[in-house]
């Protein structure tokens, strides 16, 4: 077991090392290595989950890494049903995206760097999934941050490097809180092991206030990585990276790491912390869905959609807390990984075919030219909209049901958000895929390579089936370690009705508002330019942060820089350097090369020793 998990964890690292050593100039070789390692991961994971390699019991194995007095840091695996589920999602979706990326990157000059980055990411993400304790998890947490940074900035343009920096810095803000939370946790309970924390928590009563703070600090990490308000600003910008990266990291897996973390430490959150988390999640879900209307870049629309769905997951967790909340959020995480990865890969297929055109108002009529892409994209759209009996329906259903019981206000907000989701997704379909072509690049578009379509089709099957009645909730229930609220018969009927109305109504609304073949202006923008402007500017979050950085932080930094120049560089460094240099000169001058001098040193030394030991000196 340990050996299998180690192989799953380390094979992408080996791939990355091989690529760094031999593959930097050989694109095809590095692609092959990287895909092979992802394939190995997926195969071993399938062996564990369905091939009988694992008996389903919680598995834990640790080795001491560092002991410093009281502090002992372990490295190890903590593998339970929840990690099994996410491991399956990460490796299988990851493998399909690797396959897609081979075709997508055929015109990329830095293919080795690209696939090396993907492999490092797979290593770090697997590490997060398997980590036994919070310290180890934090290490991999930072490593995914690093690989995300590297891959966002892959194209080396100004926009891409700015986006990469932004993602890194914003995540740092969240991670700072996360680290404080981990340290506090260790200080309070004496352990950060995920397996030992629950006992430690029940053994020593902690003040509610302390527990709330620890929970919220840990949630800071989630806010950064899962891009919750107000730290959501980096995710839309991260779309500057290659599309497979957006699909893998910024839709399916890394951003879900935050939600996974919530599930891993679910026992730590008390009702006070959960109510804060609920508010954050609701704001993220609702506002991001609104912002999606102000975008015309296909990837940015999808990015806001991701934000909104992540909000759904966080809300799902916060509504129930504990294992029930964790199970519901993990369920949505799983289905979302499939249909959102599919949406991004579909968008990637389109972008690749249209020579990197991303504005939906320059597309149109693509359904004829790219039928497979269109059909799979449509399926994913229906799934995310929540059309009954597709995967998204079941997971969203579970969340709505939870909200209905727990918090009516949240329920209604989620209902509206679901409607908006269907509408903005319908907008992409009606503007980009239906109607007529709006530019020459689009007219010349043709279907993508079969290997790319292969990934799309497999993911589409997942998007349809990942939550299917036959599977839900019974089959997944064991993985989620808690029963998801199972609707009674009457509730089931009413939920079905609500979902059908919301999803189909939203799509219909999109049809009436946005289906204008041939026109390349946004109907909504024309009708209400003021509101549209607000949405396009995303409520000025970015402008506010820019202002803060420019007006406050930059000035403080300038002041500190002057102090640094004068005091540290001038006086301390140059000054002490000069003094040290002078003494050094003297010390070197002591080496005269003459034996006579050297014997005087000896004599002086012996005398000094004798005097010291005799107590005279």
């Amino acid at each position, binding site marked *: 077991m340990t050996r299998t998990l180690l192989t799953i964890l380390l094979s992408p690292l080996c791939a990355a090392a091989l690529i760094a050593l031999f593959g930097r100039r050989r694109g095809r070789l590095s692609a092959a290595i990287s895909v092979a390692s992802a394939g190995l991961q997926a195969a071993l994971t399938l062996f564990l989950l369905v091939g009988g390699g694992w008996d389903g019991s919680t598995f834990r194995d640790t080795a001491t890494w560092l002991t410093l007095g009281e502090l002992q840091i372990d490295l190890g695996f903590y593998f339970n049903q929840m990690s099994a589920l996410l491991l399956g999602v990460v490796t299988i979706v990851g493998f399909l995206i690797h396959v897609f990326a081979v075709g997508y990157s055929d015109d990329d000059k830095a293919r080795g760097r690209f696939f090396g980055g993907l492999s490092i990411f797979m290593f770090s993400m697997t590490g997060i999934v398997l980590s036994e304790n919070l310290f180890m998890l934090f290490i991999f947490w930072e490593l995914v941050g690093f690989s995300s940074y590297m891959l966002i900035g892959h194209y080396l343009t100004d926009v891409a490097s700015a986006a990469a920096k932004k993602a890194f810095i914003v995540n740092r803000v969240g991670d700072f809180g996360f680290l404080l939370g981990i340290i506090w946790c260790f200080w309070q309970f004496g352990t950060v092991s995920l397996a030992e924390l629950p006992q430690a928590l029940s053994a020593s009563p902690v003040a509610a206030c302390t527990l709330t703070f620890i929970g919220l600090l840990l949630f800071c990490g989630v806010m950064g990585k899962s891009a919750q308000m107000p730290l959501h600003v980096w995710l839309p910008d991260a779309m500057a990276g290659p599309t497979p990266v957006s699909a893998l990291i910024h839709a399916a897996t890394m951003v879900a790491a935050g939600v996974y973390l919530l599930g891993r430490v679910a026992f730590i959150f008390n009702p006070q912390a959960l109510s804060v988390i609920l508010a954050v999640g609701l704001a993220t879900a609702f506002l991001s869905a609104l912002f999606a209307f102000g975008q015309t870049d296909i990837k940015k629309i999808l990015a806001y959609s991701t934000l909104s769905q992540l909000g759904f997951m966080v809300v799902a967790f916060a509504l129930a807390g504990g294992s029930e909340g964790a199970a519901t959020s993990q369920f949505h995480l799983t289905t979302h990984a499939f249909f959102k990865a599919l949406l991004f890969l579909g968008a990637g297929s389109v972008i690749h075919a249209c020579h990197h055109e991303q504005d939906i108002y320059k597309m149109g009529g693509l359904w004829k030219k790219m039928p497979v892409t269109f059909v799979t994209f449509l399926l994913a759209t229906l799934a995310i909209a929540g059309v009954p009996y597709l995967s998204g329906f079941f997971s969203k259903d579970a969340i709505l049901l939870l909200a209905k019981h727990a918090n009516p206000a949240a329920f209604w907000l989620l209902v509206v958000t679901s409607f908006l989701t269907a509408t903005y997704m319908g907008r992409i379909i009606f503007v980009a895929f239906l109607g007529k072509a709006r530019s020459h690049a689009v007219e010349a578009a043709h279907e993508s390579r079969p290997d790319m379509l292969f990934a799309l089709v497999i993911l589409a099957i997942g998007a349809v089936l990942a939550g299917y009645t036959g599977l839900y909730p019974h089959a997944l229930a064991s993985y989620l370690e808690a029963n998801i609220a199972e609707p009674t018969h009457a509730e089931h009927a009413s939920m079905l009705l609500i979902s059908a109305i919301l999803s189909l109504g939203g799509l219909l609304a999109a049809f009436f508002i946005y289906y204008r073949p041939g026109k390349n202006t946004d109907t909504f923008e024309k009708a209400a330019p003021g509101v549209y402007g607000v949405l396009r500017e995303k409520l000025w979050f970015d402008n506010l942060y820019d202002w803060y950085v420019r007006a406050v932080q930059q000035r403080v930094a300038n002041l500190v820089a002057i102090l640094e120049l004068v005091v540290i560089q001038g006086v301390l460094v140059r000054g002490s350097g000069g003094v040290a*240099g002078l003494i050094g000169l003297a*010390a070197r001058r002591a080496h005269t090369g003459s*034996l006579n001098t*050297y*014997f005087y040193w*000896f004599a002086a030394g012996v005398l000094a020793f004798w005097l010291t030991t*005799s107590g005279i000196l």
Partner: protein
Amino acid sequence: MLTQAAETFRSLAPNGVDWSSIAPEIALGVWALYVLLREAFRKPGSRGAATFTTIFLLLFSLLCVRNAFAIPAGASASFFGGMIEQSRTTELLRAFFLFSGFLTTLLGGTLLKKQGVPQAEFDVLILLATAGLMLLAQVRDFILLFVALETMSISMYVLVAYIRHSASSLEAGIKYLTQSGLSSALLLAGIALLFGAAGNTALPGACADPFSFRELRVFIFLNQGNAFVLGGAALVLCGLFFKIAAVPFQIWVGDVYQGAPTPVTAYLGVASKAAGFVLLVNVVTGPLLPLRGVLLPLLSAVAILTILFGNLAALGQQNVKRLMGLSGIAHAGYLLMGVCAAMALNVDWPIVAVYFYLFTYLLASYAIFGVMSVLSGEDDSAQTLNDYAGLMKRDSFLGGILAVSLGSLAGIPPMAGFVAKLFLFIAAFTAHLYWLAAVGLFGVVVSIYYYFNWMRVAVFVPCKTEDEVEAGTLKAAPIASGFWLRTVLTTLALITVCLGFWQGFLAL
């Protein structure tokens, strides 16, 4: 065959003296004789035994590591009436010295060929010196200590002066001979004073065997104020401080390190220094421990001066061998910090930290000296920083090894040197030696300056001939180095990095 030989020795042994306990040292001596004889009767042109010697040392070292882990932790056994004590630690130290002997002969193979001097005698001397060092790791008796130390020292006198056609090598040999001789005399005088005092039946607790560490400890405990005891302790420490090159007995280092052939410099800087520390640890936590009240301030002061002197003297140094030597003085200072902590706390884990530091120091130093042997030109003693300009471009492999090893010496994470330094500093803090730790930190900061300066030269400063290379008039000379040397250097660098990440096996 070895066991048979051991059986024979056992049958020769009078009253329970177990020769098989020092079979490895005997084997080394026998092998040295074999190499000499083979060289004497070798037909001109046929191969010598050099390769076998190198492999022999490596295998032997691995064997000792295996043996060490067969001994249960904490167990020890005495032989020769308590003159020798063996435990897992001493077995690992044997492996340490064998491994440095292996590396030295390997580097010797590269350098001696270039200098046109024969290798057989070199190997013989290294074998004998290594045997002496291995004995030193186990001695618990002053007379055997002196004999083993001289076995090593006499071989070293010849080795330092080994390149007979080089004036600087000869000069270094003479300087080392006279100064080391003086230090041995001081050590012997110290031993004699202790012997005289402890053998005096008028004093309380007079010893039957005044050379034995165990008996001396009891005697010294009972006679802490005795002038002979104090004077003897001071002189013994003088002799040992010469070996580890601590201030004020460090002055020989620059000239000798520069003049000696590069592999010998490495051997002096690592193996001989390590032996000095092993002895120092055994003496100050053994017979001299009752004098802790007097010796701890003395050792702390010496450590502070050593750290300061080594780092500051290395600061503007251009000659790389001198640089390694002077910075090695600073490393001796950090190690002394660990010894002080072990004395102050009277526990074992700072000693483990000291030995771990010595091992990381061995890895990094030999890697750097290996690069030096590859790069050394006609005059082995004249290598300066300028010769490293553009090394990264000319040969990125050697540049990489150099960067990793310098990083480890400077104590930069994730290299092993960082962790090793960290342990020593933790030891000093735990022992409340705050001033010592503060000076140590200052020293580390200074050391980053000169180590990184070396790295800067290797990475950023363009090679002198580079313009001509670009103009096409001259091809950059390819740097020749053997496959095995490269493999070993790679292994050293890899262990350095791995130990930086994982050292969970240490019982700290």
